[in-house]
């Protein structure tokens, strides 16, 4: 098989998500996230006009934008793109100013307290697990099979079959070109 550069991505199928918060808890356990913080969380949508109303849940975490407002805003280049297309923070450069937290249009970052290191807390797509050939913690624990992670540059990967099912970017109007997609909720 020909060598190619990986571009890790993730898709969340909102039709399968049941909002059980298992991904949120698994992420905290796997990444030893500080007390009270979350890298991924569940948000609930209530949409429609009475009497045709409906609600659904959505896994909400870093979208690993290819044109990331947080990376553009960072004054020290601590927020950077990894060679696999994800967005991470270099602790040795971060001054903890919080500008990336405010710049993120998806509001997926949050600042850790000073005694917890003071870094912005964010999803890393579990790169340390992906490198070992494992799935991210949220995907392995998802009871509904709503999450899939894979290489977007590999045309034969399962994630690209999910893309074909109708995955879309979150807030395409922001021009952020995320590596994380959703399959929108259909009634």
């Amino acid at each position, binding site marked *: 098989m020909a060598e190619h550069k990986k571009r890790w991505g993730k898709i969340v199928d909102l039709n399968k998500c049941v909002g059980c918060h298992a991904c949120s808890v698994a992420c905290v356990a796997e990444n030893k996230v500080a007390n*009270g*913080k979350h890298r991924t969380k569940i*948000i609930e*949508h209530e949409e429609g006009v009475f009497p045709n109303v409906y609600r659904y849940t959505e896994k*909400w975490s870093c979208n690993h934008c290819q044109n990331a*407002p947080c990376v*553009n*805003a*960072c*004054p*020290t*280049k*601590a927020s950077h793109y990894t060679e696999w297309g994800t967005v991470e923070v270099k602790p*040795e*450069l*971060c*001054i*903890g*100013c*919080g*500008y990336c*937290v*405010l*710049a993120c*249009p*998806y*509001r997926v970052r*949050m*600042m*850790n*307290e*000073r005694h917890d*290191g*003071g*870094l912005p807390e964010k999803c890393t797509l579990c790169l340390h697990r992906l490198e070992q050939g494992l799935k991210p913690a949220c995907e392995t624990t998802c009871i509904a099979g709503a999450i899939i992670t894979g290489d977007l540059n590999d045309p034969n990967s399962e994630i690209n079959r999910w893309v074909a099912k109708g995955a879309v970017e979150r*807030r395409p109007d*922001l021009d952020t070109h995320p590596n994380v997609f959703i399959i929108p909720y259909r009634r």
Partner: protein
Amino acid sequence: MEHLYTWNYLIAIYLFTAGLSSGAAIIASITDILNHTDQRIKRIAAYLAPFPVILGLVCLVADLHRPLNFFKVLIHYHATSVMSWGAFFLLVFPIIAMVFTAMVYFNYNGALRKITAWLELVLGLAIGIYAGLLLAAIYNNPVWSNPLIVFLFFVSALSTGGCMVIMAGKVWDSFDQRVLRKIIPEKWLPAEKSLNFDHDNIRLLISLDAVIIIIELMVISTLIISYALRPTGEIALGAIITGGYYLLFWLGVVLLGLITPLILAILELQHKFTDNASGIISWVEPALVLTGGYLLRYVIVYGGQLVYPILTFYR
């Protein structure tokens, strides 16, 4: 809700003090470049310019979550980051302003004086504009990402800077006699003993301030209209104009910080105050403008962060 506010009042203090320094530096450098014969306003403004922003920088570092790493922002620059540009200006401005302060105090009139005055003007404009740009550059925030925020903060910087000069001018001579002239060695001391900052200087600054306050009121009205015309307008208005921090905005910023000082300034220009009541114009009016200037930053900084949870659901 506990993670709602990433930036707190320390950022508001910084934005306020950067405005004070910017206003004082612009007044000092313009009067120096124009070579105005009356030295008093220029001297007071030049003496004050570096110090508020140094206090603001202490607040900025105190607000960092990794304060021991703060020097990294001075070593690593990032062209796309507004904060990185600001860090450069905030590093250079206090140094140039201190040099200019020393030049004015010790009556240095050499070739470098003109260059330093121009540098002070450029850097004063830079930090005045940067304060608003820092917030306006966050492009998905309905409250902050508005070019008028930059203009509003800049106009407010001129107003508060001028009022700081009025208050400092009243106490300068006694401060100079009692403190400075006891610290600085005799042989370096400049010849003239006192500035005699008097009522004419105050009247000049007050009349300028009245004009700037009118401009500021116009900018605020334009800002409200600009919010209302946007698709996210309801969110922005709800955060600072009709809900959220609206009491602080209407009572603190508009009524206490703009309308009342404007009325006092107009009464002063009509010679309505007797000599006994001169304290109203030299202390009360500037103090109100300064309070309003701080509350403006406070309302914008906190109101802008109030909207974030709604943005998560904004499609």
